[in-house]
């Protein structure tokens, strides 16, 4: 009888361990809970009369002395005036250039990345979004779930046949046709909204 009970307990153990492993790993793999640190970002937005093309560079660091896998989702501003962005792509720039497969799962673009122990990785994400009115938004407030402010952030608007009219973050002229703002120790409270007109 005891041996039978022992066998049943062993049979129960497998699924429990399986599920526990999955439940433990899921928040990290899905990007719900951050393991790595989000330290820097550099955002270039090319503003065209009818669309924007976003090129973001993001620097993440694994603070742990062992390898980890982190899931990421790409936050995209979508409403009735701003259709879903297209041509969403992600690529590791350093330490070694590599294309990352972006997948659309549970209504979000997602990708995963492996980090070596204490490794710092620079990733670039690109997308293009059509705009019906001459305004657009870049989501900054998703820095909050990373639970630490950005060490440094650079945000640039490159005007392509347009004139930027307004921005809720103060912009400085960077070079001909480009406007910029920098932030250090930055935990954004609001997203970046800007408007323009065709010239």
């Amino acid at each position, binding site marked *: 009888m005891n041996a039978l009970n022992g066998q*049943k307990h062993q*049979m*129960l153990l*497998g*699924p*429990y361990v*399986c*599920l526990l492993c*999955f439940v433990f790993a899921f928040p990290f793999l899905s990007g719900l809970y951050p393991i790595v640190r989000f330290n820097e970002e550099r955002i270039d937005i090319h503003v065209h009369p*009818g*669309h924007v093309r976003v090129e973001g560079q993001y620097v993440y660091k694994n603070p742990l002395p062992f390898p980890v896998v982190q899931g990421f989702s790409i936050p995209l501003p979508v409403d009735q005036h701003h*259709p*879903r*962005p*297209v*041509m*969403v*792509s992600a690529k590791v720039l350093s330490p070694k250039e590599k294309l990352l*497969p*972006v*997948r*659309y*799962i*549970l*209504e979000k*673009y997602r990708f995963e990345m492996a980090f070596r122990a204490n490794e710092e990785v620079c990733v670039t994400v690109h997308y*293009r979004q*059509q705009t019906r009115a001459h305004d657009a938004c870049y989501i900054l407030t998703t820095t909050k779930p990373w639970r630490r402010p950005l060490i440094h952030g650079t945000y640039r608007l490159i005007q392509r046949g347009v004139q930027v009219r307004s921005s809720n973050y103060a912009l400085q002229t960077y070079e001909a046709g480009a406007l910029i703002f920098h932030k250090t120790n930055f935990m954004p409270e609001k997203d970046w909204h800007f408007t323009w007109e065709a010239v």
Partner: protein
Amino acid sequence: MGGGVTVARILFLISIFLLSFSESALANIPPSPQSLLALISILPIMILLTLLGGGYSILKRHNHVLIQSGKKPWELRRLQWTYEIELDSARQDRGFKIHLTPTRFPLFPYNYFTSRPSYLVDHAGNIRMVYVHRKTQCPMDAPVVMRLGNDEIQQILSKMHQ
């Protein structure tokens, strides 16, 4: 004890479900932007073929032309592997519509966790898109996610001729 066994079975089924979902989500769904890039790269040739007339039959007949003319023929092969391409041309006004309808999805119920873009392109260069869970054509009133101007089409054509 009976309750324990039932719980174990449920946990086992949940584990299988979640593992299968991971498998179907990570392995079977091709990266999203590829289909649109492929569509854009072959769009000018499709326009030319449509202007010649003949719709889908000409697309099929000139399949080898399409494949040979692109610098990256794998893009079209990949597109045809995962999408149904339907050309709807009206020769009189030289207007046309191209439906790109995804054909490959994970098995039910995993198709409801993932979705794939279904496209509709018109002669004005408007690319409409909706995300679908099963083989569904993009409706005419879907939002325009991209508008290709003449200059962009010219750029693509010149890249093809390089």
